[in-house]
C-alpha cells in the first residue's frame, strides 16, 4: 500500500521536482537519446527537405557545393513552369476524380460489409469472414495479369474503371476488418430498440451505426484516399493516353523527359507530395490509430 502511494506521488510531481529527482546519469542518458533521435530525424527529413529546397532553385544553383539548403533567391517560377510544360492541372484533376470516387465506394462498401460481419447473424458468416481475412494474405501481384485480361475484355483499358470499380465492390479486406472491429463495440441494445420500433436493417445501418462509426470511416477514408492517390502500378497498367494520366504517371513523365532539370522534377514532386503531407497533419491522430490497428489485425 505504502509502495503504491509513493509511486503515485512520484508521478504526480511537477516539472521542477522531476528534474531535481533525475539523476545525472539518467539525464545524460536522456540527452544522448535526444541527440540520436534528432540526428536520425534530420537524416529522415533530408530527402524531403532537399526536394523542397531544390524546387525553389535556379537551374544553375541545383548542384552547387557545398549544398545550399536555403536558396539565395526563391525561384517561384519553377512552379509556374511545371504547371504548364506538362498538363499538371489535368493530372491533378484525374488523380482527384479517381481517388475521391474510389474513396466514396470504399466507404460505402466496407461499411456495409463490416456492419454485416459485425452485427447481423447469417449462416456462413464466419467462413466468409475468414475468406476476407485470407485475401489480406494474397499477394496482389498474382492478380495482375488475369485482372488485366478481365478489364480488357470489358473494354475498360484507358478508363478509370479498373482503378475505381473494385473499391465499390468490397474496397479492401483490411478496411472491412477495421470497420467490423469498430462496429462490434457499439452496444447491441441500440439495434434491438430500433427493431422494436420497426426499423429495417438498412435504416439501422444508415441512421444509427454509420454516424456512430465516424472515426472508423475517417481512418478508412484516409487510407483509401492515399492508396489511390499514391498508386503507381494500377495507372501504369490501365491508363495509356496522356489525357488520363494521374500525378504518379505525370511525375514519371517529368523525370523521364526533364531528367536533368531537377528544379522542375522537384517542383513537380513537391506538388505531388504536399497534399499528402497536409492531409497527414490534419488527421495525424486518425492515421496513427489506423496504423496501430493494422498491428492488431495480426492477432
Amino acid at each position: 500500500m505504502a509502495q503504491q502511494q509513493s509511486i503515485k506521488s512520484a508521478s504526480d510531481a511537477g516539472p521542477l521536482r522531476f528534474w531535481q529527482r533525475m539523476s545525472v546519469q539518467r539525464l545524460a542518458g536522456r540527452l544522448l537519446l535526444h541527440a540520436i533521435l534528432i540526428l536520425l530525424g534530420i537524416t529522415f527529413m533530408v530527402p524531403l527537405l532537399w526536394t523542397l529546397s531544390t524546387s525553389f532553385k535556379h537551374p544553375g544553383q541545383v548542384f552547387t557545393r557545398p549544398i545550399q539548403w536555403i536558396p539565395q533567391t526563391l525561384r517561384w517560377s519553377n512552379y509556374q513552369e511545371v504547371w504548364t510544360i506538362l498538363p499538371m492541372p489535368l493530372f491533378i484533376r484525374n488523380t482527384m476524380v479517381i481517388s475521391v470516387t474510389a474513396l466514396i465506394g470504399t466507404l460505402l462498401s466496407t461499411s456495409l460489409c463490416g456492419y454485416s460481419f459485425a452485427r447481423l447473424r447469417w449462416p456462413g458468416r464466419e467462413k466468409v469472414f475468414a475468406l476476407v481475412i485470407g485475401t489480406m494474405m494474397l499477394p496482389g501481384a498474382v492478380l495482375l495479369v488475369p485482372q488485366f485480361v478481365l478489364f480488357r475484355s470489358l473494354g475498360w483499358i484507358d478508363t478509370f474503371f479498373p482503378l475505381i470499380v473494385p473499391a465499390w465492390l468490397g474496397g479492401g479486406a483490411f478496411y472491412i476488418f477495421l470497420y467490423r472491429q469498430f462496429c462490434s463495440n457499439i452496444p447491441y441494445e441500440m439495434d434491438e430498440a430500433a427493431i422494436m420500433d420497426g426499423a429495417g436493417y438498412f435504416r439501422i445501418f444508415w441512421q444509427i451505426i454509420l454516424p456512430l462509426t465516424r472515426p472508423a470511416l475517417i481512418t478508412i477514408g484516409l487510407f483509401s484516399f492515399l492508396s489511390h492517390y499514391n498508386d503507381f502500378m494500377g495507372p501504369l497498367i490501365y491508363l495509356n493516353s496522356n489525357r488520363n494520366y494521374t500525378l504518379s504517371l505525370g511525375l514519371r513523365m517529368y523525370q523521364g523527359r526533364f531528367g536533368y532539370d531537377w528544379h522542375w522534377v522537384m517542383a513537380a514532386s513537391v506538388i505531388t507530395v504536399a497534399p499528402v503531407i497536409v492531409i497527414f497533419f490534419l488527421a495525424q491522430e486518425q492515421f496513427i490509430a489506423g496504423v496501430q490497428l493494422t498491428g492488431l489485425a495480426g492477432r
Partner: protein
Amino acid sequence: MAAAPVSSTRRRKRFANREAVAGWLFASPWLIGFVAFTMGPMIYSILLLFLKWDLITPPEWGGLANFTRLVGDRRVPIALYNTAYYTFIGVPVQLAVAFLLALALNVQIRGLALYRTIYYLPSITPAVASAVIWLQILHTDYGTLNEFLRNFGIAGPNWLYEPALAKPALIMMSVWGIGPQMIIFLAGLQGVPAVLKEAATIDGAGEWSQFRHITIPIITPIIFFNLVVGIIGSFQVFTAAYIMTGGGPENSTLFYVLYLWRNGFEYFRMGYAALLAWVLFFIISFFTVIQFGLAGRWVYYEALRS
C-alpha cells in the same frame, strides 16, 4: 409485444430469416467483388497457363510451352535471387531499425509526437516521388549522400550503377519508409502492462532482464505480424526498381514482379506472365506457411486478450 408462445418461435424464425437475407445482402459488395476480381481471375489464370497469347492475335493452345520456357529461363533464378536478397536482408534491417526507434520513443520522451511525425512522414510519400527523390540522393556525382560522404574524405560509390551496390542502395532507401512498422511496434510496446514491469521491479529484475523476459515475449505477435507483412510486401517490390534502375545494372535489380510485369506488359506473354505469377504465389504462400508453422516456437500468444 406479448405474442402467443406458439407463434413466437415462428416469428423469431422469420426474423432470423430476414436477418440472414439482410446479412448476405449487406456483405454482397465484397462477395461480388471477390468472385469477379479475385476468384474469377485466379481460376481464369489457370487456363492462361496453357495459352500462348500476345493480346493481339487470338489466344492459342500452347500446351506446356510456358512451363518449358520457365525451366529454361535463366532470368527467373536471377530475379528470384535478387528478390530473396532484397527480402531476407531488407526486412530484418527494416524491422531492426523500426524496433530500435520504437524503443527509443517508448520512454516517455519529450517531443514524442514530433519525432513520431518525422519518422512516419517518409512512408506516406508517394512511391514515384520517393523513387525520383532517391534517384537524386544516390546520384554518383551530385547526390546528397555522396556529398555527405565527401565531408569525411570518402569518395562515394556509384550506388545505382554498381551491380554489387544497387540492391543494398535500394534496401537503404526502403529503410526510409519504415514509419508504419515503427508505429506498430510502438503501440505494442505501449501495450505492455505496467503492472508486470512493476511486479518485476519489486522482484528485483533489472531493466535488461525485464526487457528480455517481459517486453520481448509480449510483443512477439507484433514482431511476427511485421515480419509476415514485410516479407509479403518485399517479395512484390516493383516501383523503385522500375523507376530508378529499370532492373539494371546487369540485372542486379531485376526483381521478380518487375520481370513478371515485363513479360505481361512489355513482351505481351500473357500465359507466361500468369505462370510466373503462380510461381510467386506458391513461393510467398510457402514462406507464409513456414512462418506460421514456426510461430508456435517463439510467438507468445497467451498474454493476449481482446
